[in-house]
């Protein structure tokens, strides 16, 4: 029986290949994701290990409030002396590091979208991990070392001049050397500028150190030295061995990467799901077409179990081969994913490819399980063929009656899915992973519910779509419509595969439209300013010198700085974002809607007043007059009195507002997040004035509020583009499904097609007929998908509605979806239509 199965597969190579391809794509996506994230992981791990070269012990100050990727505050210079005095220390050196900005030869800021430009200070040679391809370390305050990747990009060499800016105004330096770290031409995607310690400290306005590297004297182990130093320094410091430090940094990154990996795997999962539909459909059809063959086998004495195993063996064979091919494609896909993310502004960098055993195993499992599970129901149907059918003319079984029970079952599944999603969103299933699982299941149930209902909808939808087709296509159109409804089950499954992709596209489109509208509305509601000044990259802090320059610009009536800090509210387990406002000027640029209080509250915050939004107030049971105590990142405790409660809404301030003055004094906060500028006259004119005034701070970017809104919208669009890119694979698989189903049904109708051609149907008419079927199927998928997508969006935006999320259905996008469905239908029909029109009339009508 195994031989029968395998021979059968080889006989129908093309069909097998098409079926397998669906799995290949899904598995490639899964494998590609793992390869992609593993590669990043490994390259960063390598980077961190190299960076800690020569470091036996690493000392940093302790962050009272743990936050991923937050830089610990700098340590006092005396710390270094204390460390140097510890027994067993061969050498200790202090380093500073921060984000900085490089300017290109035209004076434009070089941004890399993802990783920042790192400014590092140089140290003693034993701690220097870099390999110099040109020149050497910086000797004086006017020299810097640049990473090789950046130098190659701009054609810089030893002796060239570059401009760097950090907290101090920009300055020009001479390149003293070009460096690499291990195999990487840069720091795994980040650019690097290396300066002498003194210059780095000056430019960052730091007189202390961000970390201290210690080399142990011979005879002292790193662990021993670590405990000694920890004992010496006491509580306010984090002391780790060099290895531990490298591991921790790598771990932090792995965790962040974990999110990306899960997100990508979700998309891969969608592709696999769609592929599963395709496999189910193909096997259903081929089983039906081969019923005579199975009947013959049963007549000859094969048991039902043997038939089942034979079909399952086929699915297993396809699954294994497809998974292997998928893994190979995954290796190709990984750089594709990297390029896709880079195009959307997330540049991860370029490193060698990592194929782990885990990847191979998971990919194989996914591919094989998906194929076998999808083929299971058709396999069981194959066993139900009666031996007597071998004697009858091969007639493709007519459509099974689609009954009431089916509709009822479908509605139940659908309702269960909706219930689960609502529970996940509004109930409290627990930690994020539990919520995600609940939401995931709910989504799957909704998809399956609609897929089960779909056959009942095929007839009415075909009529709906077919009627307009009949005018241009005539008889071909009528036949197309009838053919689509001949086997509603088959058409429904094919359309459902497309439905999934379309639903997600529509969901994303609605959400993006809503997000853009919400952002615009939030800004319109709250912001009274003429312009805003942010950092070039949109999230880094600005040096405070910026506000002084802005005040002098023509037309500016007020400059209000906004700061952000993270603290932990006493009694909370997670951090809270705290927004600082300039109490003198904030009312000129911002207005809020108040539940209890008014904008005047903002003016009178003083050193210990705070305003909170009503969501925060509700969560923490706060009323006017209550006190709030925060632990700052430094470890200090600061208390505030609640003076006002404002409506929570999307906007540019967070849930807790205090004065900038208090942040500066009690939180040791230096930088501002951004500045809002109120002014008279043309905002564009004010913006140019600002640009001139800020010439020395190239990282500061002034914008009008309209510019700002547009930029925010573009960011949403960028993310949406990325998601569409990731969904496109699923859509391609679904289109393959349409091609496949059409090809099978053409094959099935060879005799009929031959007869039509004999009676005088032209080749063109035949092609039109097949094309019509394809368009109808594609449109059914698009309509179902649109309905499902809107339902998803409506559900998912429920909890967000309270935050002011605007629910908008972008008609433009829906029209675009419809047009794309049309094109997809036409394109998918091309191979089957050609095959149909080429049917050998003679062979088709001959009965001998």
């Amino acid at each position, binding site marked *: 029986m195994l031989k029968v199965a395998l021979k059968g597969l080889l006989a129908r190579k093309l069909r097998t290949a098409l079926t397998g391809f669906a799995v290949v794509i899904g598995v490639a996506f899964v494998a590609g994701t793992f390869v992609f994230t593993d590669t990043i992981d490994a390259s960063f791990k390598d980077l961190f290990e190299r960076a800690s070269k020569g470091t036996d012990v690493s000392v940093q100050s302790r962050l009272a409030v743990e936050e991923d990727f937050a830089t610990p505050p700098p340590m006092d210079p005396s710390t270094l002396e204390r460390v140097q005095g510890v027994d067993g220390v061969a050498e200790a050196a202090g380093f500073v590091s921060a984000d900085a900005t490089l300017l290109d030869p035209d004076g434009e800021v070089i941004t890399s979208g993802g990783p920042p430009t790192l400014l590092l200070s140089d140290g003693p040679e034993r701690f220097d991990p870099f390999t110099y391809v040109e020149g050497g370390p910086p000797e004086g305050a006017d020299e810097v070392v640049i990473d090789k990747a950046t130098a190659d990009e701009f054609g810089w060499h030893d002796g060239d001049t570059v401009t760097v800016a950090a907290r101090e105004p920009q300055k020009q330096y001479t390149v003293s050397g070009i460096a690499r770290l291990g195999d990487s031409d840069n720091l795994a995607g980040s650019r690097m500028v290396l300066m002498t310690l003194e210059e780095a400290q000056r430019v960052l306005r730091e007189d202390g150190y961000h970390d201290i590297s210690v080399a142990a004297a011979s005879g002292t182990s790193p662990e021993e030295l670590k405990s000694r130093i920890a004992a010496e320094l006491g509580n306010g410091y984090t002391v780790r061995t060099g290895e531990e430090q490298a591991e921790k940094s790598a771990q932090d990154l792995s965790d962040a990467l974990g999110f990306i990996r899960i997100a990508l795997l979700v998309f891969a999962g969608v592709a696999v799901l769609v592929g599963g539909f395709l496999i189910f459909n193909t096997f259903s059809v081929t089983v039906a077409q081969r019923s005579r063959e199975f009947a013959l086998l049963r007549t000859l004495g094969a048991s039902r179990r043997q038939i089942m195993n034979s079909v399952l063996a086929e699915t297993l064979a396809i699954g294994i081969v497809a998974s292997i091919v998928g893994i190979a494609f995954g290796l190709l896909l990984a750089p594709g994913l990297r390029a896709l993310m880079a195009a959307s502004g997330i540049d991860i960098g370029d490193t060698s490819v990592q194929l782990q055993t885990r990847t191979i195993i998971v990919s194989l499992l996914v591919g094989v399980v998906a194929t076998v599970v999808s083929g299971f129901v058709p396999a069981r149907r194959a066993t139900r063929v009666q031996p007597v059918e071998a004697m009858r003319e091969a007639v493709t079984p007519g459509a099974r009656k689609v009954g009431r029970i089916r509709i009822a079952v479908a509605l139940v599944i659908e309702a269960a899915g909706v219930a689960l999603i609502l529970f996940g969103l509004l109930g409290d299933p627990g930690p994020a992973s539990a919520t995600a699982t609940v939401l995931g299941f709910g989504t799957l149930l909704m998809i399956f519910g609609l897929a089960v209902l779909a056959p009942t909808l095929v007839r009415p939808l075909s009529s709906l779509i077919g009627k307009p087709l009949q005018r241009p296509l005539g*008889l071909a159109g009528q*036949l197309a419509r009838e*053919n689509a409804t*001949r086997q509603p089950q088959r058409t429904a499954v094919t359309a459902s595969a497309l439905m999934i992709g379309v639903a997600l596209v529509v969901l994303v489109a609605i959400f993006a439209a809503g997000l853009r509208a919400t952002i615009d509305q939030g800004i319109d509601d709250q912001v009274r300013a003429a312009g805003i000044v942010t950092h070039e990259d949109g999230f880094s802090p600005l040096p405070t010198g910026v506000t002084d320059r802005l005040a002098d610009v023509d037309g500016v009536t007020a400059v209000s700085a906004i700061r952000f800090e993270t603290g932990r509210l006493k009694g909370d387990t997670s951090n809270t974002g705290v927004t600082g406002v300039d109490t003198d000027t904030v009312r000129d640029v911002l207005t809020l809607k108040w539940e209890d209080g008014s904008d005047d509250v903002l003016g009178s915050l003083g050193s210990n007043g705070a305003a909170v939004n009503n969501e925060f107030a509700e969560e923490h049971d706060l009323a006017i007059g209550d006190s709030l105590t925060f632990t700052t990142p430094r470890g200090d405790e600061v208390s505030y009195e609640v003076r006002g409660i404002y409506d929570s809404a999307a906007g540019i301030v967070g849930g807790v507002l205090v004065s900038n003055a208090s942040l500066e004094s009690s939180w040791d906060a230096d930088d501002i997040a951004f500045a809002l500028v109120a002014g008279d006259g043309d905002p564009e004119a004010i913006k140019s004035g600002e640009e001139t005034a800020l010439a020395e701070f190239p990282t500061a970017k002034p914008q009008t509020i309209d510019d700002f809104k547009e930029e925010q919208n573009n960011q949403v669009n960028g993310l949406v583009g990325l998601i569409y890119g990731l969904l496109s694979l699923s859509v391609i698989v679904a289109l393959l499904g349409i091609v496949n189903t059409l090809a099978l049904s053409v094959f099935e109708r060879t005799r009929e097609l031959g*007869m039509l051609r*004999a*009676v*005088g*149907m032209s*080749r063109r008419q035949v092609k039109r007929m097949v094309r019509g079927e394809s368009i109808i199927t594609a449109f059914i998928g698009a309509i179902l998908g649109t309905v499902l997508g809107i339902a998803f969006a409506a559900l998912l935006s429920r909890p967000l509605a309270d935050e002011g999320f605007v629910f908008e259905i972008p008609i433009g996008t829906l029209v675009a979806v419809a047009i794309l469905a049309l094109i997809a239908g036409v394109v998918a029909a091309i191979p089957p239509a050609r095959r149909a029109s080429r049917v050998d009339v003679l062979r088709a009508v001959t009965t001998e």
Partner: protein
Amino acid sequence: MTDTTSRPIVSTSELRRVYGEGETAVHALRGITTAFPSGQFAAIMGPSGSGKSTLMHLLAGLDRPTAGSVVVDDSELANLDDKALTRLRRDRLGFVFQAYNLVPVLTAEENILLPLTLAGRKPDRDWLTLLIDAVGLGDRLTHRPAELSGGQQQRVAVARALIHRPAVVFADEPTGNLDSKSSDEVLALLRQAADEFGQTVIMVTHDAHAASVADRIVVLSDGQIVHDGGGESTEGVLDLMKAVA
């Protein structure tokens, strides 16, 4: 009775059809020269492998000869490309096959009108009514093939073959799948078409009883015509076949 005074509606000259080449070549037809006048009901017979179906396929423009010519209704088929051949079949020829004649998703009436719909022409209502009466399917017009018996399906096929008043009706074993009663009905229809409507019918069959309905019997054997004579009774046909077997 070959009527030499009327112009032949189908004629062939030295028609040959060879499949394959070299040693494995199969000579299905070895030089057939014959003509069919308008209004004649001819039966083409022969044992298995005689070439009768091949001959019909060539006459109907469903296949191209290896050598020789076929002229149908004054058109030399060799000069026609696929599009033109298709149009010829649509507008000037009618077909009844042994099985799979009808489009399953169309009603009986729609199936009958198929050649006209393909051509984008409207039916002559009177002619349609006449045909429907003749085939006796007035109450079955809205039914789909699956709801019709084998005999009824074949009768629909005959009506379809006649709706556009073709020059020739080709029937390939039209009674092959039918019981004797349905068989007789279909043959009677074809006979009626020839007698009342002046239709030329060329029928390929191995059934002696079916052949007895024809005006002319052509027998093929090994790719050549071995008998070409007038109508015979069923016994007469059987004798003919015995002679060639």
